[in-house]
């Protein structure tokens, strides 16, 4: 009670920089809370599913006996059927799920929407404990059934009952809605699912449940109660030998609780994935920022010890024990921390929406969770240990006599240990500044990379509807007639991905290698290079008029490098294993510059473009540069609605898609710079307090110097020079740490920026500028004080 009264008197009088302490702690606590929420979100991933701890994916290790092991969670339907038939009694549930989200047009009457969803065997909804709004979990038994998410059901049918209604998929299949499920929360594996359809529907008439060479499925299993993942992994390890006795592929279970953060494998061993690394980085940053904030508290308390010393001395002379004083200071720090915590909560509440936007998360303060409040309370005590214990013991140790007579302040050691802490703070801040600069430099570096084509003004549409078949040329003619487009093309894979790989190519003087090289193979309409904007190095483009061009290909620089052909034009490339629509041999017609298809940080992929007679589904439309997009879009929509009425006009701009590739790194950049900013603010507040303390301490010295003729500028230089010394020391310490850390980070990228010296210099410069601005105010005040006034104090 007493402490409370004293505390609020202190608040009113700004005793001992109480506001600086509160703001520092508030920032530290807010960051820690935020990162705590993040960690909780990541760790609770998939926990939505009731069977969280008994579900696993069946994964395969290929090539176990020789050389590099390749691990994948994608299996064939054959594998799934084998396990289901032979091992069913080991599991309480087993289901194949299409190993990728599938976009389909779901329509009802006039309403049609492109939706993402999964195809799965009937057992899966029960295993995933799908929450049914209506219908039952086992409603996917019929090939012509479908589950819709609550949101999609609402979009299609409004408030009326969806179960029992018919919907059309891709304008082809009539499916009956047999269930409506609650949309899955964002932090689950299948969160994107807006519909769930039977796997049989996906396989349809082109595939079946006993295929062994097409890897396209997840295989989910649910263990029986009491069974362990490890033992069951052992049981199924050699299951594939029943199909092929000589196989080098082994199976194992990957439990659901490891999917999110431990989904990377290197040579068969689980290694941390990028999310887990991000989590570690965040935890480290959060911990450091909390330490920075606590250092401020410690520094401000101990540097103001003269201020406290007299009071402590008096109390001790009147019979206070050390314990009492320790308790008093711990109470005081606890109160400060509590207030900082409340402000931090309020700040978080206000800024969480904004933070979620830049981090792509969906974090919320769990106001109603008692665990949250318990952990918060424990956390506050820990912060009190970090921030409060040292000052309490340090200050309570003061000898009463020395404290009263002010002799205590003469200790040199006290100052240098505080200097050390400030150096530590600035080392962390400078290292973080360097980190943020390098991250942005890397992003810019990748953004400035030549793309190899022109994403601007390029529109893309996915034609996943059967009534598009055979209409490409009509579409092209009609669109060109509008005058708003320059050219249109179609390909089987998007230009912004590296889908589609083949390795059955041979050519003249090919060097024999253990593995035949793989190429990214894209089937395109003859207008592809022209529409996309590829740049020719040699040879010429496809021409629709010349039928002979159908047996030619265009390759890119990387592919040429791989083939090592001195004069590629006219050379023949053969296929050893042509599929039904391939020709056994092609002639090279042209060579184009490399294009960035996958990650902008990865090397360009060797690409082969094959002209296709079929109508491919990915449309690319180059808008006439003389026409604005807003004028062109309605006209394009008109044409498409007229010719392919079943296709929704869900267009995207390729430059937007291209920029998506930078999102992850931009997100990291934003987060790191946010935390860097907070670290700098905390460190500056600490420095500000310390500068005030030192200026005060040297009041007399400054007075004497001025009486003896020192100019104000000289005193400013003297005071500021001292601080600059520390910042320079911090720079020297921060540079190697940051260099090492960022060197490690850049190793993640093949196309990477350099760790230029100027980044380090700039970070040091920024830190120095901030430090100067912070301390100058105090120095200036001390230097301009009338010496008579400062000397009278003695």
């Amino acid at each position, binding site marked *: 009670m*007493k402490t409370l009264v*004293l505390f609020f*008197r*202190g608040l009113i*009088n700004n*005793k001992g920089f109480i506001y600086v302490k509160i703001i520092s702690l508030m920032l530290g606590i807010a960051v820690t809370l935020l990162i705590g929420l993040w960690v909780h979100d990541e760790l609770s991933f998939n926990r939505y599913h009731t069977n969280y701890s008994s579900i696993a994916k069946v994964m395969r290790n290929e090539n176990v006996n020789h050389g590099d092991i390749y691990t994948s969670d994608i299996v064939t339907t054959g594998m799934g059927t084998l396990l289901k038939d032979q091992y069913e009694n080991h599991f309480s549930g087993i289901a194949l799920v299409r190993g990728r989200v599938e976009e389909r047009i779901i329509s009802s009457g006039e309403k049609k929407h492109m939706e993402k969803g999964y195809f799965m065997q009937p057992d899966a909804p029960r295993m995933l404990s799908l929450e049914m709004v209506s219908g039952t979990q086992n409603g996917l038994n019929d090939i012509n059934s479908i589950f819709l998410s609550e949101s999609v059901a609402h979009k299609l049918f409004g408030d009326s009952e969806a179960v029992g209604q018919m919907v059309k998929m891709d304008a082809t299949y009539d499916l009956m809605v047999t269930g409506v499920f609650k949309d899955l929360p964002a932090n689950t594996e299948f969160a994107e699912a807006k519909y769930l359809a039977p796997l049989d529907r996906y396989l349809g008439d082109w595939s079946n449940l006993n295929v062994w060479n097409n890897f396209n499925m997840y295989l989910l299993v649910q263990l029986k109660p009491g069974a362990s993942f490890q033992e069951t992994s052992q049981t199924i390890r050699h299951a594939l030998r029943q199909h092929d006795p000589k196989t080098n592929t082994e199976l194992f279970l990957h439990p659901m609780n490891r999917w999110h953060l431990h989904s990377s494998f290197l040579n068969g061993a689980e290694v941390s994935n990028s999310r887990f690394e991000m989590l570690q980085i965040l935890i480290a940053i959060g911990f450091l920022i909390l330490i920075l904030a606590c250092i401020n508290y410690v520094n401000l308390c101990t540097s103001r010890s003269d201020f406290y010393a*007299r*009071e402590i*001395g*008096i*109390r*001790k*002379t*009147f*019979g*206070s*024990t*050390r314990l*009492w004083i320790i308790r008093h200071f711990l109470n005081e720090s606890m109160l400060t921390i509590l207030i900082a915590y409340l402000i931090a909560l309020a700040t978080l509440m206000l800024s969480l929406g904004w933070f979620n936007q830049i981090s792509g998360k969906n974090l919320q303060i769990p106001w109603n969770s008692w665990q949250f409040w318990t952990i918060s309370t424990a956390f506050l005590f820990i912060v009190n240990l970090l921030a409060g214990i040292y000052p309490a013991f340090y200050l309570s140790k003061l000898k*009463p*006599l020395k404290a*009263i007579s002010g002799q205590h302040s003469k200790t040199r050691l006290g100052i240098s240990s505080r200097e050390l802490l400030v150096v530590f703070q600035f080392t962390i801040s400078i290292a973080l500044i360097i980190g943020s600069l390098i991250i942005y430099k890397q992003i810019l570096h990748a953004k400035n990379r030549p793309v190899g084509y022109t994403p601007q003004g390029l529109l893309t549409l996915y034609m996943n509807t059967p009534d598009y078949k055979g209409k490409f040329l009509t579409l092209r003619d009609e669109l060109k007639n509008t005058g708003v487009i320059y050219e249109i093309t179609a390909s089987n894979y998007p230009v912004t991905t590296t889908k589609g790989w083949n390795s059955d190519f041979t050519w003249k003087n090919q060097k024999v290698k253990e593995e035949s090289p793989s190429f990214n193979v894209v089937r395109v309409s003859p207008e592809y290079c022209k529409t996309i904007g590829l740049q020719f190095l040699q040879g010429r483009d496809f021409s629709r008029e010349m039928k002979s061009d159908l047996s030619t290909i265009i390759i890119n620089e990387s592919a040429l490098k791989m083939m090592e052909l001195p004069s590629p034009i006219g050379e023949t490339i053969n296929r050893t294993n042509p599929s039904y629509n391939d020709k056994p041999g092609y002639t090279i017609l042209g060579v184009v510059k490399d294009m960035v298809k996958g990650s902008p940080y990865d090397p360009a992929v060797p690409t082969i473009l094959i002209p296709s007679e079929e109508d491919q589904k990915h449309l690319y439309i180059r808008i006439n540069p003389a026409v604005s997009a807003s004028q062109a879009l309605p006209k394009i929509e008109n044409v498409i609605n007229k010719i392919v009425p079943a296709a929704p006009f869900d267009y995207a701009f390729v430059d937007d898609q291209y920029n998506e590739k930078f999102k992850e790194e931009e997100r990291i950049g934003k987060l790191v710079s946010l935390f860097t900013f907070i670290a700098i603010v905390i460190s500056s507040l600490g420095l500000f307090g310390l500068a005030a303390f030192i200026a005060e301490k040297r009041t007399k010295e400054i007075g004497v110097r001025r009486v003896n003729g020192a100019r104000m500028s000289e005193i400013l230089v003297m005071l500021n020079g001292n601080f600059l010394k520390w910042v320079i020391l911090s720079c020297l310490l921060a540079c190697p740490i940051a260099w090492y850390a960022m060197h490690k980070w850049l190793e993640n990228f093949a196309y990477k920026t350099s760790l230029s010296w100027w980044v380090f210099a700039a970070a040091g410069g920024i830190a120095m500028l901030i430090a100067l601005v912070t301390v100058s105010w105090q120095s200036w005040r001390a230097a301009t004080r009338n010496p008579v006034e400062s000397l009278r104090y003695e």
Partner: protein
Amino acid sequence: MITLKNICKYFDNKYNRTFILKNVDLTVAEGEFISIMGPSGAGKSTLLNIIGLLEEPSEGEYYFLDQPVHKLKEKQKTDYHRDYIGFIFQAYHLIEELTVYENIETPLVYKGLKTKERQAMVADLLDRFNIVAKKDLFPQQLSGGQQQMVGIARAIAGKPRLLLADEPTGNLHTDQGRMIMEMLKQLNEEGMTIIQVTHNEEFAKYAHRIVRMADGLLFDESKTKTASAV
């Protein structure tokens, strides 16, 4: 009550030893009022601090109520501060964040008294020192004399048997000084043992006995008229 035998206090430098107190012997009986006088640097305050257990002698023995207190540990000293010794300082040393009432209450809190008891005792003291009206003010709002009154009230709140005053009138006008000295005299008459350090001959004479010091040595003791009057 107090017996000092051969008390020395010195600091060792590289080449020589600087004495602040040299072979001081002093006996103080219960109920006495003593003034210690001497020029600056004579060691008066150091002697007082040693008696008050704020400083330790480098050599010598110190018996307080027949206990060898030079052997005490920090913790036990705290008990003495709590129960036997009160302090008054030249600079008052009131706690600025506390009101007059709370300042006086401080020693009672450390003694572990209940709120009710403390309230009664502080009320008595406020009454006695005539500062009831000022009880909610902060030290900065009082004059020097008033602050020292609060200082005395605080010093005797815990009912100590020994009151140590280090130049209690040093910062005050003569009138205010006299007021303080009258108060000390009155306390002494009620039975409290008092030792004060002072520069002022007039105020020194309030005591029974004046001890004069120079260069760390006790060199003169004289009874005052006050003493003969008793």
